[in-house]
């Protein structure tokens, strides 16, 4: 049986220079191709869900449409608004793109392979805290959007930038907390080690029952997985959370004033960020480059050599499909409900879940079985008691109109009296007087009231 060679952290940093450059170029090409195909994929899938044919003119299945759009966009006039802050306006899209590509560099695409005689991992590099690096990149990508919105010097882009900064900060908190659960379980913050930790399930014994816990963290840590996915959609500004570029409210949000190549760069950064987030979800929760469970049982070599590239690409495409699916299905959220979801739902659930997870970890490792059972029983009793005795929220009586009027701050606009009868306007009165009575057919005597 061929066993996949998991890279350890010592395996990184020994590549010759040409291999490093080749890997970086490969990552760049991967991001570029995924952008081109991603746009096509999204338009085709959304069209299919909307019962339309979708792209079908340029190339087979319209595959070349994105390329054509990109080439056409590149030859458009590059408009610089007169009120713009020139330097920042110029650099904002590049910040967004660079951050997107940098995040891709620590994604593990496969195990150790041999390239021209050099044993190397299919990953540009890895550091002990590489997940934080991805996270820092997605945190810095917001600068591209905020600064692009601000530097345009007009109102809609500014509002788009404002929204995106608030949104990204809020959702980054939930996202970071769901990663904490992964760190706690995997015992490492490096992407390659997290993939290695999901290799196989851990045996657990639960009240005498011996079970094997699932290896993938998507199942083992399902609350974290779900919250991470929701936060990833919020973090990449995708529908239903695409408030920064809500076309019905803000024209195109932060990229309203952008044109030509700079606009293309913004589009590319969105898709590269999507690919990066999908790759991150795959790495952290879906077993990374490893083949899904049934495949490895009858094909032992599925995890070795270059095959993992296929698995990870398939998983990334599935995650991209989820992104597109959400966009095609869900209406855009209102801003306040969106913020409430982030701060009042995802964050508390995540905190409680991490607390529970930490408790489970301590119980499993540091406590002997009798006291463990005692503690578990105590916890269950406490939870039941809390559920029983939880004070039900008493609704405060709704304030009457008079109270509302009295509680207004000083300097408000004057209010009309509560019992004001608004007389109809002269025009309305005239219109009523001139109108034929409605019962003209029913009452031939012509009695008017």
């Amino acid at each position, binding site marked *: 049986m061929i066993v996949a060679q998991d890279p350890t952290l010592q395996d990184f940093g020994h590549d010759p220079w040409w291999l490093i450059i080749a890997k970086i170029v490969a990552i760049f090409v991967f991001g570029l191709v995924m952008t081109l195909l991603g746009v096509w994929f999204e338009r085709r899938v959304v069209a299919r869900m909307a019962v339309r044919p979708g792209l079908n003119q340029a190339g087979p299945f319209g595959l070349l449409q994105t390329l054509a759009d990109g080439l056409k966009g590149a030859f458009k006039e590059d408009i610089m608004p007169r009120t713009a802050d020139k330097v920042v306006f110029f650099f904002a899209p590049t910040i967004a793109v660079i951050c997107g590509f940098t995040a891709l560099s620590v994604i593990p695409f496969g195990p150790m392979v041999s390239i021209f005689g050099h044993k190397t991992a299919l990953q540009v590099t890895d550091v002990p805290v590489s997940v934080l690096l991805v996270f820092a990149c997605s*945190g810095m990508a917001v600068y591209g959007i905020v*600064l692009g919105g*601000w530097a345009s010097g007009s109102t809609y882009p500014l509002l788009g930038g404002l929204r995106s900064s608030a949104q990204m900060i809020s959702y980054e908190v939930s996202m970071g907390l769901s990663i904490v659960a992964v760190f706690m379980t995997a015992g490492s913050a490096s992407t390659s080690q997290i993939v290695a930790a999901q290799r196989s399930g851990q045996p657990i014994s639960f009240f005498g029952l011996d079970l094997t816990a699932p290896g993938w963290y998507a199942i083992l840590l399902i609350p974290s997985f779900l919250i991470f996915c929701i936060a990833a959609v919020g973090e990449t500004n995708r529908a239903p959370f695409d408030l920064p570029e809500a076309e019905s409210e803000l024209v195109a949000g932060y990229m309203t004033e952008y044109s030509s190549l700079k606009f293309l760069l913004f589009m590319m950064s969105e898709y590269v960020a999507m690919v990066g987030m999908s790759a991150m979800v795959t790495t952290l929760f879906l077993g990374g480059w490893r083949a899904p469970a049934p495949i490895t049982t009858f094909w032992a070599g599925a995890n070795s050599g270059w095959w993992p590239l296929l698995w990870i690409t398939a998983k990334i495409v599935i995650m991209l499909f989820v992104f597109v699916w959400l966009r095609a299905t869900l209406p855009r959220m209102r801003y306040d409900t969106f913020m409430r979801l982030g701060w009042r739902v995802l964050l508390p659930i995540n905190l409680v879940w991490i607390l529970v997870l930490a408790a489970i970890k301590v119980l499993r490792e540091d406590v002997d079985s009798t006291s463990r059972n005692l503690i578990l029983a105590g916890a269950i009793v406490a939870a039941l008691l809390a559920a029983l005795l939880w004070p039900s929220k008493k609704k405060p009586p709704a304030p009457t109109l008079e109270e509302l009027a009295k509680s207004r701050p000083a300097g408000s606009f004057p209010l009309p009296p509560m019992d004001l009868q608004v007389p109809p306007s002269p025009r309305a009165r005239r219109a009523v007087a001139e109108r034929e009575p409605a019962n003209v057919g029913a009452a031939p005597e012509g009695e008017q009231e």
Partner: protein
Amino acid sequence: MTAADVLLLGLGAVAVGSGLLVVTTRHLVRAGLYLVVCLGAVAGLYLVLTAELVAWVQVLIYVGAVVVLLLFAVMLTRAPIGASDDLDRPGWPALLVGGGAGLGLAALLVDAFRWTKVDLPEAGTAERLGTEIFRSWVLPFEVLSVLLLAALVGAIVVSRPDIGTRE
């Protein structure tokens, strides 16, 4: 001079220079951008000292969140493009406090260490950092947490006049 020394000196110069630009520029948003450069340079210093975790957390928290919030606040209020000439900055007291603190600390450190060679301890991994914080420094850590929590609650109370007022 080793490569690490050169990097430290260069990054230090970048940090100090961009820090000066933060307080002297008249462009409000660009001041925030210079602050990003300054904090990024400090993160680079940590990286040179092989404290990877601290460096990335610095980028994550300060560059990725704190300055974004600062910019958010600026844009929520005025978001001026171009120079703002109506900024009033008490320059001399700030110079006195900032320069005094910087020079004083520098003098103190120079006097304390002179030319003693300090061997770099093992790399600042997450494990070692966690052990240090939660074994030796747990009390200051907790006190800081409580302080931050108090500041948070205080900010909410101050910004919401409808809390705690009586009719």
